[in-house]
């Protein structure tokens, strides 16, 4: 009931196609990372889901209905699109009170989300005195105001300090654990890897991937074993004897692909190779993403639009 469903969605601005026949679903109970470079169509897709922009063709629904048909939508869907949306001369609390009133949400909720986002102490300060990170928190507070089952956040980590980044990560995990549908756009790979369960990747308006994050990485990046030794000759000989191929790197360590760390460890120990470091290296989201984009020729075109 609370899924976001995007079907064959297309949005053209003049001759530019910002979103190009995109189809995907966002399911409850997990955090879906919405990835892509700037200009890939992430924000446009979110605006289309929220009924703010009119699609050229295709549909976007929340819980099976177009957003615009929801009564008191903030009670079902919360969104952060732009941290600058709050008027600078209004206090954070008044900003949320106005938002709450439109959907008959009690004022107590405004105070609750100010508390939850760490803004209680500046609730009665004017927004123009807020840092970018505080404005992001206010935007997130607005998204949480109606206690919605569906949450869309566009680049929520923007401007947050390290403490804030840890906070948003834990918040997103918690919201998903509560069974909510969470869609979070980002162009930061490491950040997204820290909270996402599922990935939807856009490039130049087109859908490039819609898979669980683990599958996305494993399909593109080989796990490998990382080794440092004082006796390179013995290492090479021992590995070669078991059919492994070691590659030396400039930093002085070696990597072995298509191998597991417990196998390599036992093998080197039996051969008496002196080991300084032995580690299993998992593929990262960043590696997998770069692998994906390298195969998408349009991405590497020199005049990519920002």
């Amino acid at each position, binding site marked *: 009931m609370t899924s976001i469903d995007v079907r064959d969605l297309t949005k053209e601005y003049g001759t530019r196609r910002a979103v190009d026949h995109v189809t995907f679903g966002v399911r409850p109970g997990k955090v879906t990372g919405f990835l892509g470079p700037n200009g890939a169509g992430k924000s446009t897709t979110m*605006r289309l889901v929220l*009924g703010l922009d*009119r699609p050229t063709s295709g549909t976007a629904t929340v819980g099976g209905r177009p*957003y615009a048909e929801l009564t008191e939508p903030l009670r079902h869907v919360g969104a952060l*699109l732009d941290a*600058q949306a709050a008027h600078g001369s209004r206090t954070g609390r*008044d900003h949320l009170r106005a938002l709450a*009133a439109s959907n008959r949400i009690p004022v107590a909720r405004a105070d609750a989300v100010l508390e939850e986002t760490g803004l209680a102490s500046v609730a009665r300060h004017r927004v123009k005195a807020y840092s970018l990170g505080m404005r992001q928190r206010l935007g997130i507070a607005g998204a949480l105001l109606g206690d919605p089952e569906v949450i869309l956040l566009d680049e929520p980590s923007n401007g947050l300090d390290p403490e804030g980044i840890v906070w948003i990560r834990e918040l997103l995990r918690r919201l998903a654990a509560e069974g909510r549908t969470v869609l979070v756009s980002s162009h930061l790979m490491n950040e997204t890897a820290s909270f996402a369960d599922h990935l939807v990747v856009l490039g130049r308006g087109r859908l490039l991937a819609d898979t669980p994050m683990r599958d996305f990485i494993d399909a593109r990046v080989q796990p490998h074993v990382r080794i440092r030794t004082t006796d390179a000759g013995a290492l090479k000989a021992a590995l070669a004897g078991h059919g492994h191929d070691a590659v030396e790197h400039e930093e002085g360590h070696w990597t072995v692909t298509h191998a597991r760390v417990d196998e390599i460890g036992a093998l080197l120990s039996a051969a008496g190779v002196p080991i300084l470091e032995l580690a299993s290296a998992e593929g990262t989201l960043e590696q997998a993403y770069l692998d994906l984009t390298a195969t998408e020729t349009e991405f590497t075109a020199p005049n990519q639009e920002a």
Partner: protein
Amino acid sequence: MAFAPVFHSEWIKIRSLRSQLASLATIPAVTALFSALSSSDTGGDDFDPLFAVFFGASFGQIAAIAFGTAAVSAEFQGGALRLSLAAVPRRGRWFAAKATAIAVPVLAVGLVTGVVTLLVGKAVLGAKADALGWAEQVRGVVGCAVYLTLMALFAAGLTALLRSSAATLGILIPFLLIVSFVIGDMSNNIADLLPDRAGQVVLHATWDGAMGPWTGLAVTALWTAAALAAGALSVRRRDA
């Protein structure tokens, strides 16, 4: 979605901005001040005691227009409109609530402005105000309030269409302070149909054009309705 919660939300937005409250407070202050100045200079053959008293409305309307413009233009900054329309996807209803939240305080402040201006103007005019009957005085007060409200809404509709306070004020203020005066002095029937000239007939004790006080206000109301309709259409049709 019901209308009342949306109106409540828009009312909180206006009430929570000091600049908006300041604009409202400026309406009676400016109107009364310029009325006092004009009432002290009563020479000329075409002296009209009622318009001498309410002359300040020509300047008070600038504050009313600034108020209506700011209330709408704030939505076109930093993605505020997206937030508003995500909360209230029924755009027509949202815009109606916005217009109502502009009209109600301007009408209330306009009535206060009318009374204060009448008292100040009569005090300055002295014996020359004796010719004013009760009916004319009431008409002046009510007409002043309605006129200011219509002009604030006219500006609000125009701002929704142009999506910019600079564009709206850049058109309206020179028009009201310069163009209308100049065209008005060349005086012909077409100029009498301009929103400000038609609406201000209600502030005169006597008139010689085709329109009376209430038909004049009705003409202004038509301008306002057209501006609001254009603004509403723009809000409904365009991507937020």
